[in-house]
């Protein structure tokens, strides 16, 4: 195995805020836990869908959304542990290759929500290499802030299925909690796309 990169040095709140700054057409799905707090800290938005349960489902929710809304860029922002629980979903996504889907994995190498136990990624599993081996056309592992602007620009495009691992600094930021009312967030999200409640 290559050298293990156990998390990194990127500051998660600043990184996520930077990815979402001046957002235009992107639709955002967040995995439960810190990824949701990071996105909420960057500013609540009608085009955000936050998960509070169903660990491992951030990728699949983003997948279905991307397939139903092929003209809109869809960005999944989730943690390495959340993604690994639904690892097979990457294979299902890879077969369809929705060109408007980006998966951004916030990888601190730990299970941050449960006491900072070392995660699979922290022990050597390279999620970007898994995605590459499955046929994702664009994969990258970002350890340096200098690579963030290009990645940020790609998020508003529908330029091909993409997965990026962002090596962030381990540690918990203050919790910034999005609404836990799943029905409210669902109806708000759909309403912003022009769909009425039943």
């Amino acid at each position, binding site marked *: 195995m290559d050298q293990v990169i156990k998390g990194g040095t990127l500051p998660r709140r600043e990184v996520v805020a930077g990815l979402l700054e001046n957002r235009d057409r992107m639709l955002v799905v967040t995995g439960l836990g810190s990824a949701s707090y990071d996105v909420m800290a960057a500013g609540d938005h009608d085009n955000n869908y936050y998960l509070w349960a*169903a660990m491992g489902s951030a990728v699949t929710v983003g997948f279905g959304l991307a*397939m139903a809304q092929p003209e809109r860029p869809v960005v999944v922002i989730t943690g390495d542990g959340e993604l690994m629980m639904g690892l097979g979903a990457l294979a299902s996504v890879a077969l369809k290759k929705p060109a408007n889907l980006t998966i951004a994995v916030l990888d601190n190498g730990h299970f941050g929500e449960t006491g900072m136990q070392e995660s699979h990624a922290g022990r050597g599993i390279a999620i970007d290499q898994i995605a590459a081996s499955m046929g994702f056309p664009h994969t990258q592992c970002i350890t340096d802030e200098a690579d963030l602007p290009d990645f940020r620009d790609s998020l508003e495009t529908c330029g091909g299925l993409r997965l990026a691992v962002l090596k962030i600094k381990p540690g918990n930021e203050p919790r910034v909690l999005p609404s836990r009312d799943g029905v409210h967030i*669902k109806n708000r999200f759909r309403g912003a796309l022009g769909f009425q409640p039943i």
Partner: protein
Amino acid sequence: MALDQRSSPDWQQNVFDVLKRHDVQHIVYVPDAGHSVAIRMAEADNSIESVVLTTEEEGIGYLAGAWLGGQRGALLLQSSGVGNCINTLALQACARFPLLMVVTMRGEWAEFNGWQNPMGQATEGTLRQMGVMTWKADHPEDVEPLLHGAATMAFNGDSATALLLSQRLIGEKEWIK
């Protein structure tokens, strides 16, 4: 008693027709012989996205996402896959997405492989405990009206519904050919 799986009984065609009639645009599945006709027709239909999954709970997230994007879908799975879905069903329970499941039963009647029995016997109870409404089709003529009912209540009630296709309907699996 054994149904020849190579012939495609009308009820299998009915499954696909009812889904089409309810404007289902996404058919997501883990394969089973009992779903083979619907899967084949979905794959051949350009107005339907057919998505093969590695495990059944992926379908719950996928269909939630499709609904966020304004479209309807259905999940085809085998009874053993219901067990894989349990925790992910919280997503439907808390956000109330329409979720339509069509479940082929194993471990329910005349089962040769006893390893299918534990989950087969627990399938309907598990679904109901997680808030999924269930109906069971034992006869070919039941499939169309019961699936129509399940689809109607899923899509008009933001509800989770499941039609169980019983092992008597599907026919005994031939183990020794």
